[in-house]
């Protein structure tokens, strides 16, 4: 069993339990233990764009110190927001030693962060380390006949150079879904923003965004949308369900990519948190023996 330090983030301990539980179960089947980082704190949630506000980088850098304390140099995350914030803060201090010196001086109760911790998204680990061939071999129940529309959103891919894949033409989720035997449904909204945290104050904007994304997937015959971010998932699922009934609002379930991975590997996909239940369509395609309420 290989071991990689793992940063869950608050969402995965709260409304996105299925995202994490499915990932842990699936990775175990692939011979990997995602070892939860001891004493992790909030990633910082939103990467601070103010170049002189170092206080906003304490949270992400402190998490990287925890990795350093383990004698490790890698940290894997599942949530796109956490991934973006941790990775960009790591880069922020990497490119300017004065910033890092100030942050280290402030956190005088900790060992200095030395730099060099690599922040990875699980999709990149699956692609670059586990490899699609090994995943294909481990598949117990190929997702044959299941039409899945990948949805990337913003934080997984941007800014260019820091994301897991090309921000305009990403392939990583398509390739994973293909390895699982699913039929990939391409659509033009896969890298469009879901409305993000406008969901807190302007649900109307988010509802219009997710209706367009879901509409594109439905129009092309998708059964499901695959996501990698609890906020995208919330918007595509809960906000879309709240807009249901309005003329022209499409309805399609969204699941985390880890849940499809777990399903194909014969592990528990931990479905059941979604407002738009994915279990009926999965049952109809023969992937769930029974629909549990």
């Amino acid at each position: 069993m290989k071991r990689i330090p793992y940063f869950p983030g608050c969402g995965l301990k709260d409304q996105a339990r299925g995202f994490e539980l499915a990932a842990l179960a699936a990775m175990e089947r692939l011979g990997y233990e995602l070892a939860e980082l001891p004493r992790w704190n909030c990633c910082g949630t939103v990467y601070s764009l103010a170049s002189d506000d170092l206080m906003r980088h304490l949270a992400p850098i402190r998490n990287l110190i925890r990795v350093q304390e383990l004698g490790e140099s890698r940290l894997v995350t599942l949530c796109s927001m956490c991934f973006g914030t941790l990775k960009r803060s790591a880069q922020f201090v990497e490119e300017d030693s004065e910033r890092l010196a100030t942050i280290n001086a402030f956190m005088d109760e900790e060992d200095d962060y030395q730099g060099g911790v690599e922040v990875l998204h699980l999709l990149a680990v699956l692609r670059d380390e586990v490899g699609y061939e090994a995943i294909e071999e481990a598949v117990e129940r190929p997702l044959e006949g299941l039409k899945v529309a990948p949805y990337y959103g913003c934080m997984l891919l941007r800014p260019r150079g820091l994301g897991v894949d090309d921000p305009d033409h990403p392939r990583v989720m398509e390739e994973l879904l293909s390895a699982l035997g699913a039929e990939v449904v391409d659509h033009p909204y896969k890298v469009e923003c879901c409305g993000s945290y406008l969901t807190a104050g302007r649900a109307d904007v988010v509802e219009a965004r997710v209706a367009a994304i879901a509409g594109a997937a439905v129009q092309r015959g998708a059964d499901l949308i695959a996501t990698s971010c609890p906020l995208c998932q919330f918007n595509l699922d809960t906000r879309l369900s709240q807009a249901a009934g309005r003329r022209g609002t499409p309805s399609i379930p969204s699941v985390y990519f880890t849940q499809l991975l777990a399903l194909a590997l014969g592990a528990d996909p931990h479905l059941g948190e979604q407002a738009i239940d994915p279990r009926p369509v999965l049952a109809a395609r023969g992937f769930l023996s029974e629909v549990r309420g």
Partner: protein
Amino acid sequence: MKPEQEMVTVYIMGKAYQVPAGLTIMKAMEYAGYRLVRGVGCRGGFCGACATVYRLAGDYRLYADLACQTTVQDGMYIAQLPFTPGERAPYRLEDLSPEENPLLALYPEIARCVSCNTCTKACPQDLEVMDYIQAALRGDIAKAAELSFDCIQCGLCAMRCPAEIVHYHVGQLARRLYGAYLAPRAEHLAKRVQEIEQGVFDEELDRLVKMGREELVEKYRARDIEP
């Protein structure tokens, strides 16, 4: 002849005083003539009333501690905090549900935490204060309750927090929620209470009450003692 008492110089609210070495900050203030009516309580390190901040000569740190538990050092600059203003959110414990993260709902400002850890550094109980706020933020009530268990509500964390969080109220609510909803119930206790209410032990108790002294002593000496 009494050996000469070693004295140190401390600055209380900016004024220099010679006080005997080895006194606590609280006793040093009283030695200097202060009559403490606020910011003083049990004098034993349990009540949390005597939050104090101080600096030491040649050291940039602002230290925080309890006046009744900290001995004076030469060149110490001392200020006593008589009170920490901090609003406790109104709630009825029985109306809360631990699944809906009432910690974040009632104290939404905990989302302002930037993980600076200043609260932890201020805590005279050496609690991992930031860690329990972080646990609260993600709805881990049991962890927040456990990490804040030894909190004495002195308020120093809240006074130092740049995000203006009132940590000790969050920790207190976490412990109340834990006790009300999450702590495992003692099933054997409920069973025994039921037995008592059903009168299972009434006869035995009556017999003891009516027993003479000699018989009682005899029974006491012959009692079963668990190994």
